[in-house]
């Protein structure tokens, strides 16, 4: 693997950029692995990376039905923040933020992590109370999050319309300065490259059709489009398709899969300095380094695997954006797309062991798991390697749906992303 550096840039420039090596090989499956990870999104690839790097487990395959990073990892609006309400969530997402901090150096790959701040707008008394509660809970958990007046919010984000006659008046905002965005593809590519360099096989265009179990109930491997592949342990990290994959192992999941959409505008000069989220009107916006406005929409009301999503949601989102930022009302949108997100009843992830020995699951990240990528990957690798959860993911069990110990971020804020 080429180490990327100023020197490697100069060397390759002098040889006409013709000698760059592929960043990872496209592997064919071996007969058996110590660990198979189903799903080559950021979470699955990252877990393979940490298995190899931190636990010395390198006989690992990451298998994807499509191309790596082509699921929600490559479709999301890349908002990264950790200002969740509950202690369990704050701990897990802040664990992820700590890893984001050094990720580009760690992977020798620029993931373009930009801590430009995430501003969450309050439009009414309910928002104010709920966000201030978040600010205080976050402070107690050592998570940065501050309350701004409407004027301070405007100063932080000049395109904001804070006039009191606005359709959705801005009465204040919560700001997490440490939050921001990252380049989604680079996260998948960086982990893939780092994992492959340590011996992990990345197998693309190979749907896993079933998880196989032995007479004692333990997993024995997976059935795929390229035949049976043996494995001592299998970790499912298949986002929207988790129910489908887990069902083949006889595990029924508390999940529903919904289309979630996003859209981007034509590229324009830098105008938007941060990320702004408005939960009440359900719109999220930031500007990519290419110059496009990146706008997040909502989930359709019905479950679906169509990876498309309905137009009414896009109309609603764009209308909301134009109300809050009238300056954008003549922008042209370039394209929209959808991803299938796996939603749990309490809107918190499930990351841990399953009733099946040797089978692990990482899912339920729903509309907001990109930000968790390094944390989920790191704790999933830990859980698989030690057959025991890391303290940060220990509360995020599958059992909580029978014990009742929910981590009810849904009731806390009903916030997406």
């Amino acid at each position, binding site marked *: 693997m080429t180490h990327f550096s100023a020197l490697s840039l100069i060397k390759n420039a002098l040889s006409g950029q013709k000698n760059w090596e592929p960043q990872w090989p496209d592997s064919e499956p071996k007969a058996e692995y110590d660990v198979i990870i189903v799903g080559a999104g950021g979470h699955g690839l990252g877990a393979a990376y940490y298995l190899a790097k931190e636990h010395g487990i390198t006989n690992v395959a990451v298998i994807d039905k499509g191309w790596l990073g082509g699921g929600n990892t490559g479709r999301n609006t890349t908002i990264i923040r950790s200002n969740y309400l509950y202690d369990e969530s704050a701990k897990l997402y802040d664990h992820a933020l700590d890893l984001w901090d050094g990720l580009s150096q760690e992977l020798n790959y620029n993931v373009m992590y930009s801590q430009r701040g995430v501003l969450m707008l309050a439009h009414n008394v309910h928002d104010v109370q709920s966000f201030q509660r978040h600010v205080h809970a976050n402070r107690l958990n050592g998570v940065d999050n501050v309350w701004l007046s409407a004027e301070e919010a405007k100063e932080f984000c000049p395109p904001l319309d804070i006039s009191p006659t606005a359709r959705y008046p801005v009465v204040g905002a919560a700001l997490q300065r440490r939050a921001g965005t990252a380049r989604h593809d680079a996260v998948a590519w960086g982990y893939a490259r780092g994992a492959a360099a340590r011996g992990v096989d990345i197998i693309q265009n190979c749907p896993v059709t079933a998880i196989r179990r032995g007479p004692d109930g333990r997993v024995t491997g997976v059935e795929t489009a390229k035949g049976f592949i043996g494995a001592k342990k299998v970790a499912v990290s298949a986002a929207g398709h988790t129910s*489908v994959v887990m069902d083949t192992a006889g595990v029924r999941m508390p999940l529903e899969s919904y289309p979630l959409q996003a859209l981007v505008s034509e590229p324009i000069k830098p105008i938007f300095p941060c990320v702004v989220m408005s939960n009440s009107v359900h719109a999220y916006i930031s500007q990519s380094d290419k110059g496009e406005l990146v706008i997040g929409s909502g989930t359709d*009301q*019905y*479950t679906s*695997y*169509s990876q498309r999503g*309905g137009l009414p949601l896009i109309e609603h989102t764009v209308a909301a954006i134009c109300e809050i930022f009238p300056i954008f009302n003549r922008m042209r949108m370039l394209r929209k797309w959808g991803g299938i997100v796996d939603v749990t009843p309490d809107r918190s992830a499930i990351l841990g062991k399953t009733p099946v020995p040797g089978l692990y699951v990482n899912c339920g990240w729903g509309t907001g798991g990109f930000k968790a990528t390094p944390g989920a990957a790191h704790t999933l690798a830990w859980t698989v390697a030690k057959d025991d959860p890391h303290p940060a993911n220990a509360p995020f069990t599958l059992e909580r749906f029978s014990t009742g110990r929910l981590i009810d971020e849904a009731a806390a804020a009903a916030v997406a992303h």
Partner: protein
Amino acid sequence: MLLIHCPYCNQTLPELEFTYAGEAHIARPADPSSVSDEEWRDFLFIRTNVKGPHYERWRHFHGCGRYFNAVRDTVSDRFLITYKTDDPRPELSKLLEKSK
């Protein structure tokens, strides 16, 4: 946008008139106090989340206001049938035969 047939109004109308109400044919336990935690979990939280024909409930919210059932393919989003809540659960093989 989906076009949905309300079996009560007997009209096919835009999705915006309707609200989705989750998976259908999930019966509340008849004797709640005798039910185990696992059975409660199954009733409250476990869903088939099937990729393919899905039995589900809809409500004609901005119309007659009534709940009804439907079978919709979650890959194509195409409805195979909508039917009244007290109609029996239609058999999938027959629906698939008919939709060919």
